[in-house]
Structures are given as structure tokens and as C-alpha cells.
């Protein structure tokens, strides 16, 4: 092992001077040699086998020897250099078979303070006659090192960007392949550079795919080329859109495609490639076709609706006109009936009047037969008058010319009046007629005349259709509904269930035949129902054939004027 610090004393300036001046006489050859060595820009040193510095040229002294009065930083740099040099020297001495050793050595420029890289080349001096030692040449490789490092860096970057480019390309391929639409990249001359998978399926087929498929793929390719020609050459468009009628190579099914091709330009504006994207129009066409169908159906429907609306409007207009005509006809009918009624009454007045006078013996006594016949004239005349009066009533109700006259009144008095008016008729029958009224009957607020007319009519009917037994009027107050129910119950012929509604219709009796047994107009119940409705009530019937009937007028205790 060489000693660790043998360099310091001999490298002191004094020593050096002494070393330089150690030969007694200046030898011109030696001086020349010395000048020669000093002129070399690389440091050159000669050391003893132990590493002690014996000789150094000017550049080596700059690095490894501190001058008298050098700054503290300078001395420290030199000291550091000496140590580094020694370490390199030691390590050079230990390795390898070759006598010439090379080691990298970093030193500091004591003046500039910059790092310097040297290659330390040590060569043992074996010239006979020369002192044993070794020649150390420090080759400045600082710039070379920098260049190497820069080169390494560039290379690394290149590798990285190459890697990046490769993964970019891979990603691009993946993206392109994942797009359903065929994408074709061509160079400016139209030669295909890149295709994604969907495009490959359309344009490229190998010979083993079969003749037909190959032919179709070529046909597709021809279509594409023809399409691309729009962008090729001088004055080609930057961007071109069109339709391509392709086919599916495998099946030959038509494949309408929308194609958009764009020039890709370099930074200098030179065309570098053309990217063409195809889009399947089949679905769009189908949609368009369906839309067209829907539109046509819709417009058809619209026409139909329009026609129907027009028809409806026409119908409405017709109906409106008819309604108007009906209204007018109804008014005319009412007027006609009113006039008729008057015209009927005038002669009937004379008929009944003269008959009555004759029966009273104004013109002398008559034979019993004459009297009987006159009585028939009288009774038929009265019947005719009743018919006319009832027709007139209905006419008045329908024409809205029967006003309501509301007043407060008690029911018992009213029923008493009814019984009194019917008394002559009751007297002619053998029926037991009576009234049983509840004690708690309240005062009514209604149209007295109409209530009376209904009860009179119901009682008159009961008497007409009952041959034996009884006719009974009763009245009760139903607290819960605030209504009064006035019933006329008889033991007469009754009504079959299927006829129960019919009897309320105009001119209807159960037997409406010309040979019917019972007289009357068949308007009585119809009038009753109308009158009841006018005073907010209704007429109901309970009956069974042969079991008698009960007609009931239900009316609110207090009629509210609407």
C-alpha cells in the first residue's frame, strides 16, 4: 500500500524550484525539453513509484500546486486536487495486467472553480538510466464527458419518444379500430397508409377469401379511389363529402355510405395525408324511409281528420239548424195548440151552455128520452172540455208559460178542498173514501195550486179505476229528507209492472185502444209528473195487477226558487 500523503512536501514551490534547479548546469537540451513539456496543455507529471511528485509541467502545476500568496479558496482547491489525484493514482496502481493504466479523474480548476474531467494515463518509466517512477498524463476529457452525457441523454429521450410514439400509435390503432365507422388514411397520392378494422372488412380481402368477396372488395376500393380523386392533385378540395354505393363484401348486400374526406396538412401547408371516414347510411335511410311513411300516414290522417272535422262541422250546422227549426216548430205548436184550444172552447161553450139550459128546462120540459140524450151530449161535451184543458196545461208547461206561485199553506185544508171538490163523484160510487193525515204536518212553502191539481188528479184516477173497496188519502212528513209525501191508495185494478213507467207518458193508458173501457185523456199522470217536477218533487207509484195502486206525490217542505 502506498503512503497516503507523500505528495505535499515535494510539490511545495520551494521544492519545485529546487527540483528544477537541482541540475547544476543549465543544459540547453533539458531547457528545450522543459519548454516542450510546459507547452502541452494537458497536465503531465512524473512521480516516484510511491506516488511522490517528481516533476510537473505548467498545466499540472496550475492544478496541483498552490502559489505563494494564493487565496484560501485556491489553496483548498489545490489540496482537494492533490488528494483526488493521489487516490486515482493508488487505484490505478492496483488493477489490471497492462502496464498502461487509465482512470477517470475529476479535478477542480482552482482559478475558474469549474469541474474538470481528466483521463489519467499512467505509464511506468522503464528507460534505463532514468529514475524509477511513472509518467502521468491527464487528458482533459471534460468536453468529451459532456458530449457523452448529452449523447446518452439524447439517446434516452429518443428511446422514450420512440416508446411514446409506439404506444401512441397503438392507442391510435385501438381507437381507430374501436370506431364502427370505417376510417381510411391515404398518402397524398392516394395510396392506403392505414385502415381500421371496419375499413379492412370493406376494402381488403385476401385471395383465399373467395372470388366473389375479392371482387366486391375491389369494387369498393375502386369506388373509394374514384371518390378520393376529388382531393388529389392540384386544386383538389381540402375537404370533400359524398355518397358511396358500396356493398358488404361477404354478402353483396348494398351498403350506402356517406363519406367525408379531409386533407391533413403539414405545418408548412403541404398535404401529408387524406383521412376518409365512412358512415353507414342504411339505418339513416331506413329512418328516413320510416319517417317518410309516418309523414305520409300523418298527412293522410290529417286529411281524414280534416274531412271528419268538416263533416262534423257540417253535421253540427245541420243539427243547429234542425234545433232551431225544432224550437220554432215547438213554439209554433204551442201557439197552434193555444189557438186551437181557444177555437175549441168557443163552440164548446155554446154546446155546453145550450145543453145546460135545455136540461134546466129553459125551453120547457122534455121527455125522459130527450133528457137522457141531452145528458149524454153534456157528459161528452165535458169530457171534450177536459181533454182540451189538459192539452192546454201541457202546452203551457212546455212553453214555460205556467209560472210558479209560491206561498205558505197548510196541507189539511188543501186536502179538505180536494175531497170537497170530488165529493159529487165520490157520492156516485160505492167506495169508502177518506183522508188520514199525520198530526205533525208542517206548513208548506210551495205552489198550492199545483199541489192541489196533482192530488185532485191522483184522486180522480183512483176513483175511476176502483170499482169496490176504498180510496184513501194520507200525508206524512219525512223529517230526514224534509219532504212531505201525499199518497192516494186505492183497491182498484192495479197496474202490471211492465206498465208502471208507460202510464206517465203522454196520451197513455194501460189500455190505449179505441175500445178502452176507461175514459180520460191519458194526459193526467203526465201532467202530474210535470207539475211535481216544477215544484221540485216527483210522483211515484206502487202497484200490482189486481192489488190496487198507491200513487205518491213527494215534495220538499220548502220549495226553493231556482
Amino acid at each position, binding site marked *: 500500500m502506498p503512503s497516503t500523503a507523500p505528495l505535499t512536501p515535494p510539490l511545495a514551490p520551494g521544492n519545485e524550484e529546487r527540483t528544477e534547479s537541482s541540475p547544476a548546469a543549465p543544459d540547453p537540451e533539458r531547457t528545450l525539453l522543459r519548454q516542450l513539456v510546459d507547452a502541452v496543455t494537458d497536465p503531465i507529471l512524473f512521480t516516484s513509484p510511491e506516488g511522490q511528485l517528481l516533476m510537473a509541467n505548467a498545466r499540472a502545476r496550475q492544478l496541483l500546486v498552490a502559489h505563494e500568496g494564493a487565496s484560501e479558496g485556491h489553496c483548498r482547491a489545490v489540496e482537494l486536487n492533490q488528494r483526488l489525484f493521489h487516490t486515482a493514482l493508488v487505484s490505478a496502481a492496483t488493477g489490471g495486467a497492462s502496464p498502461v493504466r487509465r482512470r477517470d479523474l475529476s479535478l477542480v480548476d482552482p482559478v475558474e472553480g469549474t469541474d474538470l474531467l481528466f483521463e489519467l494515463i499512467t505509464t511506468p518509466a522503464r528507460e534505463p538510466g532514468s529514475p524509477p517512477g511513472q509518467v502521468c498524463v491527464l487528458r482533459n476529457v471534460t468536453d468529451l464527458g459532456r458530449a457523452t452525457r448529452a449523447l446518452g441523454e439524447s439517446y434516452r429521450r429518443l428511446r422514450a419518444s420512440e416508446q411514446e410514439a409506439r404506444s401512441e400509435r397503438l392507442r391510435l390503432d385501438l381507437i381507430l379500430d374501436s370506431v364502427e365507422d370505417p376510417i381510411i388514411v391515404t398518402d397524398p397520392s392516394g395510396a392506403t397508409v392505414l385502415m381500421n378494422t371496419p375499413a379492412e372488412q370493406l376494402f381488403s380481402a385476401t385471395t383465399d377469401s373467395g372470388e366473389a368477396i375479392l371482387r366486391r372488395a375491389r369494387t369498393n376500393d375502386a369506388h373509394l379511389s374514384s371518390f378520393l380523386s376529388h382531393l388529389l392533385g392540384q386544386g383538389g378540395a381540402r375537404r370533400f363529402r359524398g355518397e358511396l354505393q358500396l356493398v358488404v363484401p361477404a354478402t353483396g348486400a348494398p351498403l350506402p355510405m356517406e363519406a367525408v374526406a379531409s386533407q391533413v396538412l403539414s405545418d408548412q401547408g403541404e398535404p401529408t395525408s387524406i383521412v376518409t371516414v365512412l358512415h353507414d347510411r342504411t339505418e339513416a335511410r331506413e329512418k328516413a324511409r320510416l319517417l317518410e311513411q309516418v309523414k305520409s300516414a300523418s298527412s293522410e290522417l290529417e286529411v281524414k281528420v280534416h274531412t271528419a272535422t268538416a263533416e262534423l262541422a257540417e253535421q253540427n250546422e245541420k243539427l243547429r239548424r234542425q234545433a232551431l227549426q225544432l224550437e220554432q216548430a215547438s213554439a209554433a205548436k204551442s201557439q197552434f195548440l193555444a189557438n186551437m184550444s181557444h177555437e175549441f172552447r168557443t163552440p164548446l*161553450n155554446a154546446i155546453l151552455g145550450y145543453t145546460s139550459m135545455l136540461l134546466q128546462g129553459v125551453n120547457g120540459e122534455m121527455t125522459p128520452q130527450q133528457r137522457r140524450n141531452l145528458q149524454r151530449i153534456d157528459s161528452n161535451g165535458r169530457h171534450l172540455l177536459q181533454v182540451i184543458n189538459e192539452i192546454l196545461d201541457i202546452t203551457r208547461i212546455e212553453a214555460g208559460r205556467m209560472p210558479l206561485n209560491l206561498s205558505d199553506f197548510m196541507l189539511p185544508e188543501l186536502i179538505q178542498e180536494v175531497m170537497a171538490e170530488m165529493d159529487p163523484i165520490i157520492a156516485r160510487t160505492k167506495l169508502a173514501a177518506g183522508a188520514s193525515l199525520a198530526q205533525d204536518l208542517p206548513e208548506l212553502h210551495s205552489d198550492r195550486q199545483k199541489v192541489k191539481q196533482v192530488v185532485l188528479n191522483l184522486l180522480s184516477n183512483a176513483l175511476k179505476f176502483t170499482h169496490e173497496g176504498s180510496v184513501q188519502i194520507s200525508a206524512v212528513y219525512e223529517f230526514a229528507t224534509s219532504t212531505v209525501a201525499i199518497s192516494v191508495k186505492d183497491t182498484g185494478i192495479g197496474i202490471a209492472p211492465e206498465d208502471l213507467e208507460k202510464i206517465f207518458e203522454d196520451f197513455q193508458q194501460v189500455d190505449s185502444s179505441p175500445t178502452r173501457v176507461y175514459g180520460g185523456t191519458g194526459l193526467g199522470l203526465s201532467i202530474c209528473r210535470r207539475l211535481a217536477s216544477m215544484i221540485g218533487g216527483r210522483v211515484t207509484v206502487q202497484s200490482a195487477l189486481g192489488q190496487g195502486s198507491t200513487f205518491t206525490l213527494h215534495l220538499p217542505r220548502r220549495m226553493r226558487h231556482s
Partner: protein
Amino acid sequence: MTNSAEVAKPLVLVVDDYQDAREMYAEYLEFSGFRVAEAANGAEALDKAFALLPDVILMDLSLPVLDGWEATRRLKSDERTRAIPVVALTGHALAGEGTGEQEVKCDAFVIKPCLPDTLVAEVKKVLAARGR
């Protein structure tokens, strides 16, 4: 005697354009002990009323020339005839009811058809009311 009896009989003016009805009522009134004068329209009714000053007037309301309403109004606005009771007769059930009656004060109102005895009863009632 006869003369005084004749004078004592009330005079009824029957106004009706329908001859059969007019004569029927006239005959029954005479039969019932009244003296009767007849008029076939409103104008004639006014002439007879001013000339005869009857005790009661039976006035059909629908009359030619001058209708019963107008005739009654004129009778009631004239000093000479104002006090004579008027029994109005009408066959119209639809129109006119209750309207003219308020304008023109009739003393009674009878709807046709009206039997002669009913009418006479009405006349007697009106006369009795007046006599009171």
C-alpha cells in the same frame, strides 16, 4: 105594476162578438129574470153603455173594432159609467191573464167555457156586492 116590475129588473149589457154565445147568455139571463141589452163589439158596447147605463156589463175581452180591455178602460174612466160593474169573460187561457186585469179594474173575471147558470150566479154576486 108590470111597469114597476120591469123597471125593478136589473139591466145586463151582454158584449160578445160570437152571436151564439151572446144570445145564449141573453136568453138565460132573461130566463133568470134580467133585462138584457146586447153589443157585438167594443165600440157598440160603449154606445149602448152610455145610452142605457146598464146595472152590470158582461164584457168578452177579445172583441173586434175595440177590444174588451180598451172598452172597459173607457167605461171606468167616464163619470157616467164608472160605477157600473164589469164582469170580464175570456176564452184565452194562454195570453193576457193577469196583465190587463191590473191595468183595468174589472169587478169579476170569468173564464170561458162558462155555463149560463154559473155566469148568472156571478152576475148576481156582483150585483149583491154593489147593493151592499
